[in-house]
C-alpha cells in the first residue's frame, strides 16, 4: 500500500527501513522535520546536537563504532559542519554514513542561496539527489549501501520543494539487527587518525575511489536514460527533474540520481542521441560546467537563471525567451487590475517574550543592533525596524566586537537567542572578554529553539529522544566565560527591560543581559484576555507599535486626529500584559472573569 509522505518524512522512514541506528542533526528550515520524524522510531537514537559540526562528529563516531548513521542539517548548516565534513572522506567509515543537507533555492527561510552540491565536489564525496518522496526513502538505502561498499560518507542533497512536498511512497519493513550488542571499537589509528603523515597516504585512496565511482556511475541504476523525442535532450536531477518534465513531457531525459561524480560515458551517449542538449539545474551551473569540461556541447545557464527556484513557470518562460518552447504553450499569471495589496510579513506571536526587547530597542534610536538567526530576527521588520545587521548564527557577538574594535561612536548591542548562544555564541563571548572588549550582549532566553518549531537545546531539560536532559545554566556559563556584569530580567516587564538595557549600556566593559521568558508555545499558555476601554483610548498608537497580531484598529476614531483607536482581538490575545504596560492613558485592562 502506498501512503503520502513529505520528503522529510520519507527520509526518516528510509532511515528506519534501512537500519540507521544513530541520527543526529541541528534544526533549520527546510530540514527540521526529518529528525522530528526519526525520533518517532524508537529503534533509532535521535539527537538534536548543539550545532551542525557537533552533529556531524557524533554521526562519524557512531559510524566508526559500526552503526549505520545519519546526520541532517539545512543549507547554511553545512558551513558550520564543513570542518568535520571533509575528514571522514579520508578516514572512511564502518557503518554506513549518510549526510542529508536540505538546500533552500528561493530563500524561503535562509540568509543566502548556496548550492551545497559544490561541497560534494570540494570534499570528494559522492552526492545523490532524489526527486520525490519515494526516492527520498530509497536513496537513504542506496546511500548507506554505497557508503559501506565504497568506504566513504555519502551526501544526499534535497531542496525545500522536495522536503516540503508530499507524494506516494511504498513502505517496507525495517532491516536491522537492533538487539546486537555494540562491540568494542576496532582501533585502526593509521586510518582513523588524520595526522598529516598518515592522511597523506589516504589522499591517493580518495582520488582513486572517486575515479572508480565515476566509472561505476555509468551503469548505476539511479542514473537513468529516458528516451523520448530526440530533438530535445534534458539532463536534470532533484526537484528540477519533475519541474522540467512538467514543461517538456515528450523530451528525452537523462535523469541523474547521482550528481557527483558524473557518468561521462553515459552523458556522451545521451548527447550523441539527441539534437539539442539542455542542462536544467537550480542555482549554480554545477553539472553544466563539468559537462562542458568533458567537451560535450550543451546549453544551460545562458537560458535558465542562477537565482531562485526553477519552477515550471520559470523554466517555461526562460525556454520561450530562448526560442526552444513556443510562446503559446507558456501559461502564466493573468493580467487583472487589483488594488495594491498590503504585505503580510511574519510577526512575533501574541505572547512572544521577544516583543519587549524589540519594542524597547526600536525606541532607543541611537543604539545600533547586531542581530542573528531565529525568531528574534523579525526585529528587523516593521514596526520595530530595530536590527542593523544579521548574517549568521552567533555572528551578532563577533560583529558587535568588530564595531567596538573599529571604534564606532554609536552605542551598540548584540542580540542572540538562547539556541544560537549555545550553537555559536559562547566562543565569540569568550573572545571579547579575553581581548578586553566593551560589547553589550542581550541573550533572549525563551527556553527553546523556537523559529524552527520548538526543538530542544542544552538550556532545557528536554531532549529529542524523550529522556530527561541536564540543563546547562546560561547565567553560570556567561559568568564562567569571564563576564562580570550580568543582568537577568523578566521579558514580560517592559519597563524593567528598558531600565536594564540602559544600565548595561551606561557601564564600561562587557555586559550580558539575559532577557528571560518562555516562548508562548512552551510556556504556561494564555493568562486571560485584555480589552481596550475605547472611551479612554486616545488613539496614540503606542500599543500598535508593539507589533502584536492581537491589536487591531477599532471602528471608533479619535475625533481630533481622525486616527483609529485600538481594539484587542479576544481570539488572538493571550494576556501577556505588555500592551497594558505601555499604554500612556491606562486604557487597557484584563477582561474581568464572569463568576
Amino acid at each position: 500500500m502506498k501512503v503520502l509522505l513529505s520528503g522529510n518524512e520519507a527520509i526518516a522512514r528510509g532511515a528506519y527501513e534501512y537500519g540507521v541506528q544513530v541520527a543526529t542533526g541541528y534544526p533549520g528550515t527546510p530540514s527540521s522535520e526529518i529528525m522530528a520524524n526519526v525520533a518517532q522510531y524508537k529503534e533509532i537514537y535521535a539527537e538534536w546536537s548543539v550545532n551542525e559540526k557537533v552533529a556531524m562528529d557524533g554521526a562519524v563516531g557512531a559510524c566508526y563504532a559500526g552503526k549505520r548513521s545519519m546526520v541532517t542539517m539545512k543549507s547554511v548548516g553545512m558551513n558550520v559542519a564543513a570542518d568535520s565534513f571533509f575528514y571522514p572522506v579520508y578516514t572512511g567509515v564502518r557503518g554506513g554514513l549518510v549526510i542529508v543537507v536540505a538546500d533552500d533555492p528561493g530563500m524561503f527561510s535562509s540568509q543566502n542561496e548556496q548550492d551545497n552540491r559544490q561541497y560534494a565536489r570540494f570534499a570528494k564525496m559522492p552526492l545523490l539527489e532524489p526527486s520525490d518522496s519515494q526516492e527520498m526513502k530509497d536513496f537513504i538505502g542506496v546511500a548507506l549501501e554505497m557508503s559501506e561498499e565504497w568506504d566513504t560518507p555519502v551526501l544526499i542533497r534535497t531542496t525545500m520543494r522536495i522536503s516540503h512536498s508530499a507524494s506516494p511512497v511504498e513502505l517496507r519493513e525495517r532491516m536491522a539487527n537492533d538487539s546486537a550488542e555494540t562491540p568494542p571499537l576496532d582501533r585502526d589509528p593509521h586510518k582513523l587518525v588524520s595526522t598529516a603523515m598518515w592522511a597523506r597516504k589516504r589522499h591517493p585512496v580518495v582520488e582513486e575511489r572517486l575515479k572508480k565511482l565515476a566509472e561505476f556511475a555509468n551503469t548505476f541504476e539511479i542514473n537513468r536514460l529516458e528516451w523520448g523525442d530526440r530533438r530535445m535532450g534534458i539532463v536534470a536531477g532533484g526537484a528540477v527533474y519533475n519541474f522540467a518534465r512538467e514543461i517538456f513531457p515528450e523530451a528525452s531525459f537523462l535523469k541523474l540520481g547521482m550528481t557527483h561524480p558524473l557518468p561521462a560515458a553515459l552523458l556522451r551517449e545521451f548527447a550523441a542521441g539527441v539534437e539539442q542538449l539542455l542542462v536544467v539545474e537550480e542555482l549554480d551551473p554545477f553539472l553544466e560546467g563539468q559537462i562542458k569540461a568533458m567537451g560535450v556541447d550543451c546549453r544551460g545557464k545562458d537560458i535558465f537563471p542562477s537565482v531562485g527556484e526553477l519552477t515550471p513557470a520559470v523554466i517555461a518562460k526562460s525556454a520561450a525567451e530562448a526560442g526552444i518552447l513556443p510562446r503559446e504553450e507558456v501559461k502564466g499569471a493573468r493580467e487583472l487590475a487589483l488594488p495594491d495589496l498590503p504585505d503580510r510579513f511574519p510577526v512575533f506571536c501574541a505572547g512572544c517574550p521577544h516583543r519587549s526587547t524589540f519594542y524597547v530597542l526600536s525606541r532607543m534610536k541611537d543604539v545600533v543592533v547586531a542581530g542573528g538567526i531565529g525568531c528574534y530576527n523579525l526585529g528587523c521588520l516593521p514596526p520595530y525596524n530595530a536590527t542593523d545587521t544579521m548574517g549568521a548564527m552567533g555572528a551578532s557577538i563577533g560583529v558587535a566586537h568588530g564595531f567596538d574594535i573599529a571604534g564606532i561612536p554609536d552605542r551598540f548591542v548584540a542580540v542572540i537567542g538562547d539556541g544560537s548562544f549555545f550553537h555559536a555564541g559562547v566562543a565569540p563571548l569568550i573572545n571579547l572578554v579575553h581581548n578586553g572588549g566593551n560589547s553589550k550582549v542581550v541573550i533572549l532566553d525563551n527556553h527553546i529553539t523556537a523559529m524552527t518549531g520548538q526543538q530542544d537545546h542544552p538550556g532545557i531539560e528536554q531532549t529529542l529522544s524523550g529522556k530527561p536532559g541536564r540543563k546547562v545554566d546560561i547565567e553560570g556559563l556567561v559568568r564562567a566565560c569571564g563576564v562580570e556584569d550580568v543582568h537577568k530580567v523578566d521579558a514580560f516587564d517592559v519597563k524593567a527591560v528598558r531600565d536594564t538595557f540602559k544600565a548595561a549600556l551606561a557601564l564600561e566593559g562587557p555586559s550580558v543581559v539575559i532577557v528571560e521568558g518562555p516562548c508562548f508555545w512552551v510556556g504556561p499558555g494564555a493568562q486571560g484576555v485584555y480589552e481596550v476601554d475605547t472611551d479612554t483610548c486616545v488613539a496614540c498608537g503606542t500599543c500598535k507599535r508593539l507589533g502584536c497580531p492581537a491589536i487591531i484598529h477599532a471602528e471608533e476614531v479619535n475625533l481630533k486626529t481622525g486616527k483609529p483607536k485600538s481594539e484587542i482581538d479576544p481570539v488572538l490575545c493571550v494576556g501577556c500584559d505588555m500592551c497594558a504596560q505601555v499604554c500612556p492613558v491606562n486604557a487597557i485592562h484584563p477582561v474581568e472573569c464572569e463568576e
Partner: protein
Amino acid sequence: METKNFVITGVGGQGTILASDVLAAVGLAAGYDVKKSDILGLAVRGGAVVGHVRWGERVYSPIVPDGCVDYLLAFEILEGLRWLKQVRPEGTILVNQQEIYPVSAITGGQEYPAKERANKAIKSAVERVLEVPGVEIALEVGNSKVVNVVLLGVLSGLLLVEPEIWESALKERVPSRFVDLNLQAFHKGREFAQQRR
C-alpha cells in the same frame, strides 16, 4: 483525466496545512496520483501560507503552474486576492469571508482593501465564486477553529469524490476527541455548497 490543481491560501494559524494534507489524502484514496507542496518556515509566524495540491493520472511537479489553478480555497480575503491572478477564468474560488489585518496595515501605512471591492474583484475574475461565511458556520458547530474543515466540506460539495473518503481522511488526521466536531463542520460546509449548486 486532466490534472486538477488546488491552491489553499491563508494566514499562519488558520489550519491550511491540515486542509492540504486532507485534500491530498482524499485524492490518493480516490485513485489519483497526488503531489502536494506547502510553504512552511517563516510563514508559520502569522505570515501568508500557501499549499498546492494536484490530483491527476501522472503528476510531475508538486507546484501548480502559474495561471493554472482550478480551485482556490482562500481562507482569508486578502490572501485570496493575492492568488487571484493564478486562477483560470473557468476556475472556482471559495473565499472565507474573514479579514485578518496584517501588521503592515495596522502600523505600516498600507491599506487593507475594502471587503466589497475585494469580493467584487474576485467575482469578476472567475466563473464560479462561493463566498463562505466560514467563521459563522464553524461557530454553529461550536468552535471557530474548524473553519478549515468547513471549507473542505464546501469543496467536497463541488467534487465527485464520495463523502466517505473525505470522512476517513479527516478521521485519520484530527485528534480523536475532535473527530465529531470536525465531521459536523465538514457536513455543514458540504450542505452550504449543495444549497448553492
